[in-house]
């Protein structure tokens, strides 16, 4: 009997590991589909372990890059500073003119009221780690459920949209970046209002797909979120068109976007502490959106 067990030890171990890995994938998938990933204990424990490790790892890299950018690479800073000051003065003058025009027409007051209605609190969060797998593009954030961060909340910087929170633990969160192949955002061209889906390609560029062939998309156009997916608020900057591919399709064409955010240098991001209607439906099970005043207001605004 002992001999038989010794002989079967390795096949048994292999089978156990195989079943265990498959089972954990199935469970993880089911939990994330059910929208309950905020509090899955194993994800929480693993992420809590990962955050301090990633902080230690990224510290020397960040320190070197800070040293370089703040002390070494400042050769042309005086000239750049003068040019920026001149540009700021011009922009301030223009801004003043615009403000005057808006106040005169009464638009400013209406815009202020609208902003107060849709104001979303932003939580500043540090990026403590990047995805180690080349097939996935996500980041680990150092704020989690304890700071009201929930799965499905958009993540932004001052430059534009970064992605979406996909998992949280009490003190950490994971956010899928726009570059991830699983990411898809409903976007519009700011100039022509042409609509399409912005997809990650796993590389440094984004793809603007499903654009109707007749729609006007040109190199240099800025693409922003449309808000129609019910996930991201309207008007967040996604990227700039660098290439338009007409292709053979009679109906649709695609474009390549350069992301507005520099994903290689993400240090601090902001989590928008607000879920869109679709995310609320998924994670909170709010079936009747019309009954929710916040949801109906947001939907109406779009």
């Amino acid at each position, binding site marked *: 009997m002992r001999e038989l067990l010794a002989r079967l*030890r*390795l096949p048994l*171990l*292999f089978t156990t*590991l*195989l079943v*265990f*890995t*498959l*089972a*954990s*994938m199935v*469970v*993880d*998938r089911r939990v*994330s589909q059910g929208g309950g990933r905020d509090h899955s204990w*194993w*994800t929480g424990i*693993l*992420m809590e*372990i*990962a955050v301090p*490790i*990633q902080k230690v*790892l*990224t510290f020397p*890299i960040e320190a070197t890059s800070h040293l370089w950018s703040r002390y070494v690479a400042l050769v042309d800073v005086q000239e750049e500073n003068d040019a920026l000051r001149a540009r700021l003065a011009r922009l301030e003058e223009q801004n003043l003119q615009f403000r005057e025009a808006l106040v005169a027409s009464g638009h400013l007051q209406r815009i202020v009221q609208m902003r107060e209605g849709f104001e979303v609190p932003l939580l500043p969060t540090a990026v403590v*780690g*990047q*995805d*180690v*797998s*080349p*097939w*996935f*593009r*996500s980041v*680990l954030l150092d704020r989690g459920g304890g700071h009201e961060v929930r799965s499905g909340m958009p993540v932004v910087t001052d430059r534009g949209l970064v992605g979406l929170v*996909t998992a949280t633990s009490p003190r950490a969160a*994971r956010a*899928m970046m726009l570059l*991830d*192949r*699983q990411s898809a955002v409903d976007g519009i061209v700011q100039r022509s209002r042409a609509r399409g889906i912005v997809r990650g*390609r*796993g*590389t*440094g560029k984004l*793809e603007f797909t499903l654009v109707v062939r007749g729609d006007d998309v040109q190199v240099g156009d800025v693409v922003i979120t449309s808000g129609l997916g019910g996930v991201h608020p309207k008007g967040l900057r996604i990227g700039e068109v660098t290439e338009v591919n007409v292709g053979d399709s009679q109906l649709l064409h695609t474009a390549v976007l350069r992301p507005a955010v520099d994903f290689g240098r993400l240090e601090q991001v902001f989590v928008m502490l607000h879920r869109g209607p679709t995310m609320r439906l998924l994670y909170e099970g709010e079936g009747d959106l019309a009954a929710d005043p916040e949801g109906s207001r947001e939907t109406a605004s779009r």
Partner: protein
Amino acid sequence: MRRALALAGLGLAVLILQSVATAVLPVRFVPDLTLLLAVAAAVSASTLEGMLISTGVGYGADLLSGSLLGQHALLRLGAFLGTRVVSAQFHLKRGLPLAVCAVGVTVADALGTAGLGWLFAGDPMLGLHAPLDLAARAGVNALCAPLMVGLLDTVLELLTEREARRRDVRLETRRPVL
């Protein structure tokens, strides 16, 4: 126990190195060190240790990645098994066969990722640009595979030497007196 801790430490060090490489290098040229550790384990370690190292480091990669929990663990276990089968037929300690094997395992890993993505998320996640990325990654992995095997060999040798030194050896120098 000491050996298990040392191998766990090696797995952690590989994850740390991978994390640093991801932060520094362009994503296309980041070697998949966890995959290479599974390959190295198949070449150098025992079957039991290799399976545990591969699955453990796979779970570690899942922890630091946006994948499903267990996805990398399953793929690393598969990579270990595949390389073990190949190593039974070829002498993988030599540079060229090992590099070719690393390329094959990288391609198989990509197909496995695509298959699992299709199975669990309904999307294989491999676009038109995947072959180019894959070729670059396979090349980088082929270059790094001998280094990883060398590293694991060194660690295993050190552990074996230390264990041999610590082992109690009793020499029977006298005949028992009746």
